[in-house]
């Protein structure tokens, strides 16, 4: 009797640990980031790099942005290992060079700006990677009224 109880306790602890592990794993692999791609001259770097005429960013076989010089694009991604393909066209009319890029994204940044010219130039991380701080628009900052009647929603279904 005692033995089966003991075994049950062990099983329970094991199950609990497994669930915790799954939760932890979800935290790691499920972390979403928004990655912004800049095709422009990096600031505060000190060195000059060349800005290509056009860069096409392909994430997971989908073209997420076609950036001419000075433009910005974005993509949502999950996890810290970020892979993308870049089709870089140096000059107008020139041939596109295909490039595989793999990046490690910092866990605690929601929005990340990657300066593609700096990346292409092979500068270090500080130079091409910076945090994007989300500034809510005035519209969003407007106080919204919360309706909390206890019978609210009993009548309007949008199923």
């Amino acid at each position, binding site marked *: 009797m005692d033995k089966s109880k003991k075994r049950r306790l062990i099983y329970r602890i094991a199950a609990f640990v497994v669930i915790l592990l*799954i939760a932890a794993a979800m935290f790691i692999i499920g972390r979403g980031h928004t990655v912004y791609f800049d095709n422009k001259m990096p600031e505060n770097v000190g060195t000059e790099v060349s800005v290509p005429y056009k860069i096409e960013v392909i994430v997971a076989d989908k073209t997420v942005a076609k950036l001419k010089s000075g433009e910005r694009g974005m993509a949502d991604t999950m996890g810290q290992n970020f892979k993308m393909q870049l089709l870089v066209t140096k000059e107008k009319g020139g041939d596109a060079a295909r490039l595989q890029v793999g990046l490690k994204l910092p866990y605690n940044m929601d929005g990340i700006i990657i300066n593609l010219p700096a990346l292409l130039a092979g500068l270090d991380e500080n130079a091409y990677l910076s945090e994007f701080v989300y500034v809510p628009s005035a519209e969003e900052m407007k106080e919204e009224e919360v309706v909390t009647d206890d019978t609210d929603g009993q009548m309007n279904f949008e199923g």
Partner: protein
Amino acid sequence: MKNKSIGDYLRRFSVPLMFVIICLICAPISGLSPNYLINEIVTRIGRNAFLILSLLIPIMAGMGLNFSMTLGAMAGEIGLILVSDWQIVGIPGMILAMIVSIPISTLLGLFCGKVLNMAKGREMITSYIISFFINGIYQLVVLYLMGPVIPIVHSTIKLPRGYGIRNTVSLLSMRQHLDNLIPLNIMGVKIPVATFIVIFLLCLVIIWFRKTKLGQDMRAVGQDMDVSRDAGIDVERTRIISMILSTVFAGIGMIIYLQNMGNIATYSSHSQIGMFCIAALLVGGASVDKASIGNVFLGIILFHTMFIVAPKAGTVITGDSMIGEYFRVFVSYAVITVALIMYETNKRKNKSKAGMQLALDQEQEEANG
């Protein structure tokens, strides 16, 4: 005997039949294309089935329609709100939200079970009021504690005043991720295969559960508490477990529901869900004391067909779009009302029937003797 059973069948399926008729009349009038309709219905099966399945266990345990399944829905919402603030996205986000929701659901289910054990014989009205009561607690947590006590970082979720959650929380990061995990398209109908697999698994669990000792105990408790107690079954505990299970499943169901919707209406999503699911289940031919998996799916198909078709048909007929809206609301409530009335009158009829039979026997004996 045979005749009676046909009548009984008609009675039992009167509600689904009525709905078939409503749908058959309204569908052509609405002018919606069959393809659109089928697409919508398939989507809604994926969206709602899990939630409705969560209602089956308390019915099995004789606790009637679980109006407090909204408790689970609230737990699911809290899980999703937290997960979106942590920026965990996609399927991992859903799984994490489920893991977060389970302990909350369990606690709420435990509370609900305990309260219902104190209100035996009026479980339904009590569970209905519990859902309102916990809604108040939920609002306290979500509107005042989230922010200062439970850290919420992102301004897209938090109200600008610094505490509380916005009226809607976007779930764009996991919108239909489960539905589209295994894409399948048959003749223009998009089928959320992965969601269906999850629902199928729950069905299997429920079927398996019925075969367990606990399931058997629940059926026994549902039919006669006193006899079960005399046989040594812990009636109170069994009832509490059934509430906990229902609440936990409802929480998971709510997460599946919301991933399909793509956003949370923080203060109203849950309150509509309870009545919705119950109406659908009843439309499927279930009653307060008897429901099967078949009822769930038949119910979703019929109820949601009506739901899609009625407003359009109403607009076509009366020229006023609101009429149809109100009509479907009315029908939902009327269905529940009729089902409840039928349940109560049947209960009484069974009693008087027993009496009549006795009287008849005596008269026969009298005639013979």
